[in-house]
């Protein structure tokens, strides 16, 4: 029940090849693989389909976020976090470290908690992306969110949307986690205010109410 998938670079059918991934991550002139998500119809990236892009050049992608499809132009090196926050106005996911250490950018990709800072926007194509905004029903808080308020599983609130998504991911795969399982599932999300004990209470409360 650990979150080892969160840091890892998941291999998926619609993702870039490792080779192309490394190239697109560099600065300056980048190589970008035209995968199937962009309409090129190729099964996977290879030498023949590479297009060289300068920094600043963008490609069109479609992201499925909180039940809506968003078509936008991105540089291949842009993180999912940057696109969510600065291009789509979804600022629940926060910038803490931008190197996969704190979890304040945690979102769900196909129900699994994932650091949006360590995920390129182009990697998220074809995945079901959920942010804390997506847990709302109109102006009504989702259960995990409501439990965080009730148990005061927060202080400054900056890491909170990320904590909420980590908890949501946990409860989707394990509706009745024990305290140790909760601790492990939340251990990828730093809270400098140190609200952990209250966060554990909030996750337990949410589990109770989701079942009931």
């Amino acid at each position, binding site marked *: 029940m650990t979150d080892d998938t969160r840091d890892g670079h998941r291999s998926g059918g619609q993702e870039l090849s490792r080779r192309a991934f490394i190239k697109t991550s560099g600065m300056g002139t980048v190589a970008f693989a035209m995968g199937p998500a962009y309409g090129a119809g190729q099964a996977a990236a290879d030498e023949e389909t590479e297009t060289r892009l300068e920094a600043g050049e963008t490609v069109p992608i479609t992201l499925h976020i909180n039940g809506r499809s968003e078509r936008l132009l991105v540089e291949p090196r842009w993180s999912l976090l*940057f696109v969510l926050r600065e291009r789509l106005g979804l600022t629940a996911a*926060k910038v803490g470290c931008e190197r996969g250490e704190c979890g304040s950018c945690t979102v769900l990709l196909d129900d699994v908690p994932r650091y949006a800072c360590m995920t390129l926007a182009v990697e998220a194509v074809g995945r079901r992306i959920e942010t804390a905004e997506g847990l709302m029903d109109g102006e009504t808080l989702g259960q995990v969110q409501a439990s965080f308020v*009730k148990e005061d599983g927060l*202080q400054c609130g*900056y890491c909170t949307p990320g904590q909420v998504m980590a908890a949501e991911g946990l409860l989707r795969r394990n509706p009745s986690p024990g305290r140790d399982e909760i601790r492990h599932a939340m251990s990828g999300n730093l809270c*400098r205010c140190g609200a952990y*004990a209250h966060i554990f209470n909030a996750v337990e409360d949410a589990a109770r109410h989701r079942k009931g």
Partner: protein
Amino acid sequence: MAQEKEGIEGQIPFTQAPDAGAEGEPEAWGERTRVVGERHPRVDGYERVSGAAVFPSDVVLPGMVYGAMLGSPHANARVKSIDTSAAEGMAGVYAVISRNTGDANPAWSYGGGHQGRLFEDHCRFEGEAVAAVAADTPYRAADALRAIVVEYEELPFVSDVAHALDEDAPGVHADGNLAGESEDGRGDVEQGFAAADVVLERNFRVGSQMQTPLEPHGCVASWDGDRLTVWESTQGVFAIQGELAEVLDMPLARVRVIGHYVGGAFGSKLRTDKYAVAAALMARRINRPVKLFLTREQTLLTQGNRPATLMTLKVGAKKDGTLTAIHFEGTGASGAYKAGGTSLLDWIAKDLYRCPNVRTHLKDVYINAQPARPFRAPGYVQGSWAMDQMMDELAAELAMDPVALRLKNIPDGSQARDDKPYTTDGLRRCIEEGAAAFGWQQARAAGKGKGVAGKGEGHVRRGVGMAAANWYVGDGGPPATVILRLYVDGTANLNMGASDIGTGTKTVMAMVVAEEFGMDPDAIQVEHADTATTQFATPSGGSKTVPTEAPTVRRACLAVKDQLMDMAATQLGRPRQEIRFAGDRLETTDGLETVAITDLDALKNQKVVVGIGERQPNPDDVSITPFAAQFCEVEVNTGTGEVRLLRMVGTNESGRVINRLTWDGQLVGGVTMGAGFAQTESRVLDGPTGKLCNKSWHDYKLPTALDVPDEVVSAPVMLNDEEANIVGAKGLGEPVTIPTGAAIANAVYDAVGVRMLDTPINPETLVARIDLQEGPQ
């Protein structure tokens, strides 16, 4: 001899209180309250969990571009040349400023008399600003930074507080590395030691701890003509307004600072820094808003720390445990500029436990590292590490219970403030009530040095430890103003400039209003932390926000109630003195007539009643001080040196508990941060280069969900400090973290008999000491 509140080297701007003696003080709430003291969820809980809260780093404005700072990569270097031409020519780059852009390099001071510039020729610490850029995306801003060519002349450096004053140490400044020196004391320590039956002396070393809040330091700066608006991640918008107005040479009325939310601070966001000046200057040059948030690495390099500190503590006591003398020597590192390297460092030694003979001597030194900043209970956390471990060792030496030894030395007043009497017996009550809540006697008897199975010699040993504390600035005080508007429908708007840094300030204030008017706290709209639209407040720091603002809010309520009573008297045709409040109604003192607030005709006519509250001075003949004690149980693996925190009980006397939910949250958080101080957090500056080694959260370890105690119990002393102020509350945020480190160290000693004088107590350092003591397993 005694020091008056000088502020923490001017960084927490305490104002000297005017003369005490306000007339006609309102009645205390007393024991029975309706809302106050309950567990109330935050009034801004929805915003904080939904993503609706707009933190400064969330702000996106039309046309906004992204700023970034370039810092020196060397511990100490002179900038020989900067070539920004390549960066300036890059696509998407809007602005590049450096010392080459003379009109964008204003005077800048780190305080303490320093006079420098935004971009210095001589960069005395790693990360010191060299240039700044703005570009259409953060990615292209980073590209531009990499294209700037800087030629440095590397200079000798000193990075170890222990060697800063060596004769051959390179001078951080031309006049040497002693940034400041002070002495304090009372009585005659030589006589005190001569009269002692036991004298102990130990050297302690505390590593530098970094605040590193989750939201990086930064801002968004936007101009409208000659008016500047800045969204800053800060503990106090008015402090930032003042600083920016000064650096940019602008009138206060043309600088608006907004800081509705702040993603953690812990003392590191009391002031702004060069990033805000750079962002404002670039925004003005390019006529676009600039968002400039530092990278995590930059925040660790430049945005504050608790100073690395060396302490020598010598204590003498009689056989019965009575302290006879305390001699405390402390050396702390300000960093490259004078920044309070020894602020409040000797206060625990000279103020907490009763002792007639005390001498303290502090040396603040320069090293080639970023300037220190106040960090949650500055000085006290370090001082407690030494003093409360020493008390533990003294207890062992005297064969006394550590609790009994402390209870033997409880002062009646603040010894460092001319024995001004305390308003409560809080220290004794924290220790006694905490010990009872923890089951100290039983735990000590059961756990001592025994294996978990109770067999005595397993490789996993249990131990218990405790420590106590006070905090000298938990009283709050003027200036503070708030405005309360009571609407015609009985709801209210509270206008208060103070920041809610996550401690629950807004909720506490709403509960105060709710208590006075018989409302639900959620019926109150709190408008705060905006220099243009809210009332003046000092930064939220020093655990003074609740004791400063809550009495002020109550005064505003009383000002509104005063007008409502006039309205009721007129409406009911009774003399004013025959009118009293009953929840959300007013009634005649004979109980015959009553009118709801919302049925007052005058209120219906004028639609709103406005009340202004001003913080009145504190009484000047008493010491208004919060107290704390913590008790912890640990499990130590003697084979690996791992310390597991099993449980912690925290007892605080901070006067009246206003919101029990956020009170408990403070305790839980203070324990977590104290555990980090004791166990995982210590800055490492590389010997050969002076550069920061642990400049990420991967290497600088914060406690995670797996590191905190299985059980944290908050057991407040239920006491209303009516002498303190008209709500009876004192500060809490700092006392909750002061005793944690020493309590853990004492528990480790109890478990394995090893006295850890240096932080951090991590597996590596502890197992080495255990091996030394027991020999290799």
